[in-house]
């Protein structure tokens, strides 16, 4: 198990997350496009609320750069869906509920407290991590500027 966020240049690990409809979201789903994974600690918590609200405001800008943004937490899909709907956002949610935290562990972002670290991981269309960032603490909200720094740093030539 990694003890820090997976670094750039590393092949994204094998993982299985669940979409809101219960279907699987796996490493193969990352291939062929750029993906921004936003690992956040808890649905409905204050900083996560601010974070997803802020990122929703730039979701189209991320999309224009050929990337899709997802929220990832250990909450159950029903909780994530309720969270997304309560915020009125369109950022798709991926659940790491069972086995709890397995995908977060694979990406090196599982907090000992039993929740994801607050981290951002950008995966390229080749399935390789092109950029990653872990907040100094789960209470720190990474600015959306960091996502665009990451996308620019890993932009296709």
């Amino acid at each position: 198990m990694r003890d820090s966020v997976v670094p750039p240049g590393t092949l994204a690990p094998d993982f299985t997350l669940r979409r809101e409809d219960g279907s699987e979201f796996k490493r193969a789903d990352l291939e062929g496009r750029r993906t921004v994974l936003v690992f956040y600690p808890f649905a409905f918590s204050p900083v996560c609320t601010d974070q997803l609200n802020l990122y929703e405001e730039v979701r189209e800008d991320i999309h224009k750069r050929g990337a899709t943004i997802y929220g990832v937490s250990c909450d159950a899909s029903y909780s994530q869906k309720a969270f997304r709907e309560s915020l009125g956002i369109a950022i798709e949610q991926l659940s790491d509920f069972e086995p709890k935290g397995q995908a977060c562990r694979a990406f090196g972002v599982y907090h000992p407290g039993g929740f994801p670290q607050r981290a951002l991981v950008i995966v390229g269309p080749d399935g390789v991590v092109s950029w990653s960032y872990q907040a100094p603490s789960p209470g720190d909200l990474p600015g959306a500027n960091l996502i665009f720094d990451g996308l620019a740093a890993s932009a296709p030539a």
Partner: protein
Amino acid sequence: MSDLGSAPVPPVSDDDHVTGDAEDMLVIEYADFECPFCAVLSERLKSRRLRRVFRHFPIRSRHPRAWAAACAAEAAALQGRFWEMHDLLFADQARLDDPHLWARAQSLELDLDRFEADRRSEAVGARVRRDFESGVRAAVVTTPTLFAGGQRYCGQIREHALALLTQTAR
């Protein structure tokens, strides 16, 4: 496509909304008109001698009326009444729907047809978005966020923090 990567907070420009005297301490504020903490902060800032710069940072999923309110303020600005509209918007955040915006425009004796066209115009939307993007680039994550004296202050900025801020900025 706008660059949204990291950049310092932009210095004051001619296009900014600025109030106060040039010799007063400069505070750049990123705020939204539906944010209650912004309204409280605005009152606290008003009671001090400051050179204030207001920039829009509306988060629509959090405050659904914030974008329209920002555009209304910009439309008022085109008739030279930005700060008056700013104060009226913050004064009653329970009433930020279209009829309430028209009522404010009327009370400021704005040209209502022009106000209505301007607040829905691409140019005004772009103006609001420009502020928002400059905030994103400067790592603004919530409202209100203040920049003063090379420091950033964000969230609920209480009186003692404000006192410290204004001391630092002097």
